[in-house]
């Protein structure tokens, strides 16, 4: 194949990439090349610019006001001293279980009004199908902090909300603890869980006071969301 054929191939490939026409495998292979080939990045940037005038076909529609407050909530959440109830670990030990249950040891960090250096690179939006419960989670790897902000909904009467991580490829969820009554809380993830959060799914289940007695969700899964990079 000649150099000019190769170039035409790349022109078409970059266009297909920008239009999202490549299947998952081809897309990943192309992204690997993008990281290594500035010329290819140039072709992608050109297509983005070429197609941009077509975007005048996107009619503006004002989004509901709630969306803005949700976004500002997840980015700028500040709350006063959440109380994190008994961790699952304490609960399990307190109840006399000696089984080898994998649990998270959680440290609750009070949120203050000091300047906030929190810069998350992973987020998840945990929402119920009927939107009755919406919780935003954001994780900043350099701090190990997972910030939880409950936007709408609350635990059922006499019940609690428990947060779980289902790591990518894992079959069993791991408890991250019971959500406090406060709207927002920061939790510090131990290293093994911190390493497992990327690509995982966070979920919230309905549990008895104190959290699941078994180390696995016992009630309804009320909301879930994939952890994505931002």
């Amino acid at each position, binding site marked *: 194949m000649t150099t000019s054929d190769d170039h035409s191939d790349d022109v078409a490939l970059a266009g297909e990439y920008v239009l999202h026409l490549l299947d998952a495998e081809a897309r990943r292979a192309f992204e690997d090349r993008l990281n290594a080939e500035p010329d290819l990045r140039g072709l992608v940037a050109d297509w983005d610019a*070429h197609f941009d005038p077509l975007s005048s076909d*996107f009619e*503006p529609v004002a989004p509901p006001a709630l969306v*803005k407050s949700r*976004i500002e909530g997840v980015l700028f959440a500040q709350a006063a001293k959440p109380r994190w109830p008994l961790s699952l670990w304490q609960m399990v030990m307190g109840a006399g279980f000696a089984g080898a249950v994998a649990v998270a040891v959680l440290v609750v960090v009070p949120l203050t009004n000091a300047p906030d250096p929190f810069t998350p690179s992973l987020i998840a939006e945990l929402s119920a199908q009927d939107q009755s419960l919406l919780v935003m989670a954001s994780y900043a790897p350099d701090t190990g902090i997972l910030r939880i902000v409950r936007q709408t909904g609350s635990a059922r009467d006499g019940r609690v909300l428990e947060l779980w991580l289902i790591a990518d490829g894992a079959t069993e969820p791991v408890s991250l603890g019971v959500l406090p009554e406060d709207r927002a809380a920061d939790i510090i993830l131990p290293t093994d869980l911190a390493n497992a959060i990327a690509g995982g799914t966070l979920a919230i289940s309905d549990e008895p006071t104190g959290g699941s007695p078994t180390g696995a969700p016992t009630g309804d899964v009320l909301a879930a969301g994939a952890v994505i990079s931002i």
Partner: protein
Amino acid sequence: MNTRNDVEQMIARVGLGDRAAFSSLYDATSAKLFGVCLRILKDRAEAEDTLQEAFVRIWQKAGTYVANGFSPMTWLITLTRNLAIDKLRKRKAGSVDIDEVYDLADSGPTPEAAAVASSERDQIDGCLNELEATRAGAVRDAYIEGHSYTELAAKYGVPLNTMRTWLRRSLVKLKDCLTR
């Protein structure tokens, strides 16, 4: 109406962590970006989620926008459209696994493309008109509706491989025309 310069300045200030600028940027651009999400996803709840993801990402990435050569709306629309189409494909694949969207911010358009962008809509329309009507339609549908090859093949009543060949040839012709 905000000018390109206004939006550019807002993004620059957002890049420095200015929350008031973020609020202004949201007010100035969210309707357009929500329009992008709605057109592609055709589902209000998903469009709202995607708009939220887009603005979280804009807050995080605004610092990398500065002086990369893109018009600010191109940057915002591309970022949002990428997220919306990703969500669309994931919905159809029935999977929660989300690919990293390649970020256009680290490479601006070549001077060639920047010049093309300045003549706006006429040029891309002119070049699309040089293609057969159905082939131009397929390119437009891929961009505006986020259609996959499978959907395009069904819509235009041709086999998948034929659609792929058509579209790749159309892209090469389009590029020749756009850079003539």
